């Protein structure tokens, strides 16, 4: 996965075509915003409609309160207006008066067509009586018209008189009913006014709370829709400073936002992987360069070690030839001891120059040391006592890592003994003793060179045991003990305890070399 693929994923997700393609089960941003606005407006519209409805209902209720009063007023007018055409018809027999009379009669019959049953309510009974009186009155009108047509003067005159009283009576009754009704309605109107005030108050509350509800709901909804964007910006900020460990954003939101969030999470994951890969490759390159540098340094060191080794050797051919000449001369003169000495010296040199190898078998090193010991005993027969203590079977020791006879760096024991001979007994009165021991301990080969000389000062010890600074030592000779120490450090860089020195002024010095048979030296030339 590359950075390009991460960006590609993001670009693919925020593609306009993809943006308006809602995932299954999710609403799109457009539909969500439409829903928010629509629901808000619906709440407001419903509230307003409700207020309008209640206002109309209120008007209707108030109107109903006075509807009956208007009805009775109209009824009274019709009754009063019926008297004129009735009188006119009876006196003139006018057809226009009759037509007017019949029209008004019909109007009154229609107005009082409602059948009012008997009721326990006194007001309803009064209304019933008025209606019945009007019906009777209209029946009498018809009867009077009939009497007029049949010219029964006395009858229609009587009826006219009766109906005059009746008309007045009905009008009075209507007044009474209307007045009583008005009195009742005045009381009820007061109640209605009180209730309508309450209604207006609660309607106001409805509008206020509907508005607040719609606003808060819209704020809540918009916050829900925009919150992922805010979180995305925070995540982007974290990514910008290189923090790819921020948690993924998981938000249930509109499809577009969900897609962007998903793409963003994916992009973060891809970038994280990509940067990880770059870091890994850089680390490999770094390791490679370091290894290369190390190899170069090792080559330099190797050359320097060879130089050291060369420095530790004498001019072999000259010395060897010279010594052989000496041995032949001693034989010719019958000087056996001299001859033996010269022979050991020759063996020692031959040992040294036999091979220019960095590592030699352990026993080879010991054989060389024995020749050197003979020479030292001849040189210091009374002042130096030297001993070689080999553990039994040490000659069979093998390297565990290679399964071969144990190999140790060449020329490491002789320089140590030589160092003791040269430096340890300066200003010492007692008999000098040098003891060399070789033994196996667990998986280690231990080589110890111990003297009872003056010891090495602590500061000198610290200086000796320091790893050589190549630059400063470059081109200078490193001899004796320091040569051995630096070579051992070079061959066994992982083993800091490959050589230790136990020394104190006046108590002697023991140099202990501990070589792990399991550990292969860093170079095996």
């Amino acid at each position, binding site marked *: 996965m590359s950075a390009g693929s991460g960006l590609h994923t993001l670009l693919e997700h925020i593609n306009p075509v993809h943006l308006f393609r809602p995932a299954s089960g999710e609403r799109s941003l457009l539909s969500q915003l439409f829903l928010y606005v629509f629901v808000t407006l619906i709440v407001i519209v419903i509230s307003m409609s409700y207020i309008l409805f209640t206002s109309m*209902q*209120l008007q209707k*209720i108030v109107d109903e309160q006075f509807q009956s009063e208007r009805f009775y007023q109209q009824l009274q007018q019709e009754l009063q207006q019926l008297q004129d055409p009735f009188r006119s018809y009876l006196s003139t027999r006018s057809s226009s008066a009759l037509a007017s009379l019949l029209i008004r009669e019909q109007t009154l019959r229609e107005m009082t067509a409602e059948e009012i049953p008997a009721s*326990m309510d006194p007001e309803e*009974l009064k209304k019933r009586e008025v209606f019945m009186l009007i019906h009777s009155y209209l029946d009498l009108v018809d009867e009077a018209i009939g009497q007029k047509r049949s010219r029964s003067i006395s009858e229609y005159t009587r009826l006219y008189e009766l109906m005059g009283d009746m008309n007045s009576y009905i009008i009075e009754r209507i007044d009474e009913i209307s007045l009583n009704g008005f009195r009742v309605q005045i009381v009820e109107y007061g109640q209605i006014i009180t209730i309508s005030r309450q209604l207006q108050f609660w309607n106001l509350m409805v509008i206020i709370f509907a508005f607040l*509800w719609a606003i808060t709901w819209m704020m809540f909804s918009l*916050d829900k829709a925009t919150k992922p964007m805010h979180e995305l910006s925070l995540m982007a900020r974290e990514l910008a400073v290189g923090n790819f460990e921020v948690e993924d954003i998981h938000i249930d939101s509109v499809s577009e936002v969900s897609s962007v969030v998903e793409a963003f999470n994916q992009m973060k994951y891809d970038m994280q992987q990509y940067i990880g890969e770059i870091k890994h490759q850089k680390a490999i390159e770094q390791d490679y360069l370091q290894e290369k540098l190390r190899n170069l340094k090792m080559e330099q060191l190797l050359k320097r070690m060879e130089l050291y080794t060369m420095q530790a050797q004498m001019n072999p051919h000259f010395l060897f030839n010279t010594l052989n000449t000496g041995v032949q001369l001693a034989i010719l003169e019958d000087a056996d001891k001299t001859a033996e000495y010269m022979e050991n010296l020759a063996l020692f040199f031959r040992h040294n120059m036999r091979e220019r190898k960095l590592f030699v078998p352990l026993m080879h090193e010991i054989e060389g040391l024995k020749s050197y010991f003979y020479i030292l005993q001849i040189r210091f027969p009374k002042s130096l006592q030297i001993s070689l203590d080999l553990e039994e079977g040490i000659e069979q020791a093998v390297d565990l890592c290679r399964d071969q006879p144990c190999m140790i760096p060449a020329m490491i024991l002789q320089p140590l003994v030589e160092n003791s001979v040269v430096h340890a007994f300066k200003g010492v009165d007692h008999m000098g003793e040098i003891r060399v021991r070789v033994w196996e301990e667990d998986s280690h080969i231990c080589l110890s060179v111990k003297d009872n000389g003056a010891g090495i000062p602590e500061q000198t010890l610290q200086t000796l045991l320091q790893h050589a600074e190549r630059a400063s030592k470059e081109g200078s000779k490193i001899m004796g003990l320091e040569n051995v120490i630096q070579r051992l450090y070079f061959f066994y860089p992982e083993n800091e305890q490959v050589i230790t020195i136990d020394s104190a002024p006046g108590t002697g010095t023991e140099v202990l070399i501990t070589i792990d048979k399991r550990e292969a030296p860093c170079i095996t030339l």
Partner: protein
Amino acid sequence: MKYAAKAATLLFGALFTLSLGISLYTILSMSQLSLRTAEGTGVPVRHYGVYLPVNSYTFFQDVVTGAKLAGTELSCGLSFHPIGDGTLDLSMARYSGIDGAIVFPAIPDDQARRLLTDLNTSGVPVVLIEHTIANDSPWPFVGTNNFDLGKKIGEVIAKIGTDPLHVAIVYSDKSPGIYAERELVEMGILASLGDRLGRSLSVRKTDLNPLDAEDLTSQILRNEPSINTIVFTDTNDTLSATQVLIDMNLVGQVQIIGFGADRPILDYIEKGVLAGSIAVNPKEIGYRAVQLLYELEQEGISESFVDTGVQVITRASVQELQDAPSQDLGGGA
């Protein structure tokens, strides 16, 4: 922010719903009020008209109470109308669609007879209360027998009065039923007292003025000192006269026989200010009138006379009446 917005949304949503609910409840309760105004209550089967004189006296109020009680029991709607004083209600009764009429005929007899006959002709049954028109009237009657009323008055006078008995009887326009049959009342009194009357009954009359009795009593007591017993036929007149008697310090010297069983009258009797009282039962009259009319209308026949009785209240019996305040005893006719 998220939780605040969510909480505010829920809060305002709840308040909106609450306000809407209360508003709806208010408009519904208002609609119910309107509905109640428009619809009325009950579905009775009969419609009776009750025609009583226009006044606010206890007697008629109790008659109305009794009639309403019976109307409720029998599912009869009652419409109350005035009679007399030139009102046309009884004249228009036969056109008003009523199923029956209860009439206190406080109008001239001939007029009453004519109107009642018209009603009968129109098929509207009629029951008269406390007032007969003529002995041979065909209309059933509910009330007291005024002869019995007179006899009871006579018995009280005979019991408390000292001979020679000089009795004045005061009728009233406020009790037209008694006044209309004053002859029967007087006959009853004479039947009870017989020869004990020192002279003939002194007859007086008050009008509808509630204070009229005060003046009349004062005149009697001043101008006719021989009169030692005064009989009243109306509760208001009784109370007014008693006050005059007390003011003139003639309690015990002049005996007053009142009318009705109102609480002040009972108190006066207990204290000995009033010698006694005659009580009829107007609630019973109203109740029985509706009952009788219903019977007549439903079955076409009924009793011709229902006597609701007369009660004599004396100092001995007043305690019993005071202990039973809810007893259906009314005022004067």
